[in-house]
């Protein structure tokens, strides 16, 4: 009998191997950088440097410490803002999914926050919180939190009913249902919200540094634009995009490692 079973093991259709994936991703990156280099050489604008000029400027900024200093400034409101948004956002969103009263209380607020052009509120934030760290943290939170809250809320609301019933059928308590079934089942969507929220947090911090007071990466961008050092300006922009992409990639890795180990196997298959 077990022989028959072993024979009937489901073999998933062959997926691209790891090597093939690396090759295609490298081609994708080379295509973008190559296009950038060509566009810079034409040039499409005098304000558009080549890829190599930008990378040279980036290297110089790293070596003379300007980039490290700028990130030290930018990371303060970003980390505090994203930390507040992620911690409270997941908690509030999960509670909205679990308890009807919290849902009724929170849903209208966060739907309006998500729909509203929050960047337009930054002058108001400056009016209330001034031009210091608090205002920048607030800018990050108002952009990141609604996405994280609403994704967590929807994730918990759509948790697999059959799994919850299964847990209940084995006398799992409500707390066990939440910790062992609902949160892990909702984790892909919660983490998707976190990734989008962190990306929005990056937008928030750069907007704050451009619109409130020029500090950190925002200052580098503003300053180098004003003195027409476009390679340096693009280097600063490139660095923040790279930093955001790496952070979001690390979040995905954390999700797979701690919540969905089966996806690691799926990816490796």
């Amino acid at each position, binding site marked *: 009998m077990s022989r028959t079973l072993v024979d*009937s093991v489901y073999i998933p259709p062959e997926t691209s191997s790891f090597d093939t994936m690396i090759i295609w991703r490298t081609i994708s990156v080379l295509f973008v950088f190559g296009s950038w280099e060509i566009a810079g050489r034409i040039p499409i604008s005098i304000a558009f440097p080549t890829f190599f000029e930008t990378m040279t400027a980036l290297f110089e900024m790293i070596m003379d410490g300007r980039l490290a200093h700028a990130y030290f400034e930018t990371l303060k409101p970003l980390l505090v803002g994203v930390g507040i948004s992620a911690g409270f956002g997941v908690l509030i969103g999960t509670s909205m999914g679990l308890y009807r009263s919290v849902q009724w209380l929170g849903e209208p607020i966060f739907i309006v926050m998500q729909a509203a052009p929050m960047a337009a509120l930054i002058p108001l934030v400056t009016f209330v919180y001034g031009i210091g760290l608090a205002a920048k943290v607030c800018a990050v939170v108002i952009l990141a939190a609604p996405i994280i809250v609403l994704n967590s809320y929807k994730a918990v609301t759509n948790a697999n009913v059959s*799994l919850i*019933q*299964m847990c209940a059928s*084995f*006398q799992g308590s409500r707390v066990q249902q939440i910790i*062992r079934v609902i949160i892990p089942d909702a984790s892909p969507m919660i983490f998707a919200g976190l990734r989008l929220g962190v990306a929005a947090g990056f937008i928030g911090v750069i907007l704050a540094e451009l619109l409130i007071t020029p500090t950190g990466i925002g200052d580098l961008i503003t300053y180098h634009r004003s003195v027409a050092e476009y390679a340096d300006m693009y280097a600063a922009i490139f660095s923040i995009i790279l930093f955001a992409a790496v952070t979001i990639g690390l979040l995905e890795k954390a999700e797979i490692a701690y*919540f969905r180990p*089966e996806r690691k196997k799926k990816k490796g298959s």
Partner: protein
Amino acid sequence: MTTVIASPTQEEHSRVNDTAQEIVEVSGITKVYPGGTVALRGVDLAFPKGKMTTLLGPSGCGKTTLLKIIAGLLDATEGVVRVNGKEVSGPGPERAFVFQDFALLPWATVLTNVGFGLEMQGVDKATREAKSRSYITKVGLAGFEDNYPHELSGGMRQRVGLARALAVSADVLLMDEPFSAVDEQTRRLFQEELLRLLAMENKTVIFVTHSIEEAVYVSDQIVLLSPRPGRINRVVIPGIERDGKTPDEIRREPGFLDTVEDIWDTLKKYLDEERMV
């Protein structure tokens, strides 16, 4: 020999299964869903210990609703469920549920899935793993302990669900169309395996299926439900003699075929009535 009891009372059940003690009794079960849909009305039934009882009926007759009420996963609007003579109002350790869609945790290995019920009951990790491994072997999945559900076929996933239910040592197994998601060959193999496992484990099984042939083949008694609102139409005791016969021989026996035909006639009547409406 097939025995048919029309609209049986619990006393009549006891006469038919006079050697078996009743482990689950449902009395006056009515279920009205929000919105007013009456799924079940006044259902009285008794399930003999150590036997397999199948709930059979047209779609929407409340088979799964009744099973979930017995499991304590749904509340009845009226009526009571007694297990071992004690009234129950929620899930309990004496009952274990096997789900139609397997309900396996996709992020957990076979070993963790099988031990999930034990974990919920507070069993320590070492005992849990030892017991889970034993049941994984019993259902024929030895060697797959560290695999994830997405790496298994439908039949294998349902075996994990069955092992999880057996591992908690519940007296009563509640199975909601457990073979509906597997192909015909696997379904027949599974039926044989289930009968073998149940003979070993001495469990009482309440089984929901849409397949008349499956119901007649595996059951000690078949409860035929009427269309919604579900009521007991009659109870059929197939009385299949298995001694020394192969599954194919059993399925070719006149008694088996007549019982299948008889149940089909009843269900067909329901379908015709529904079509007329």
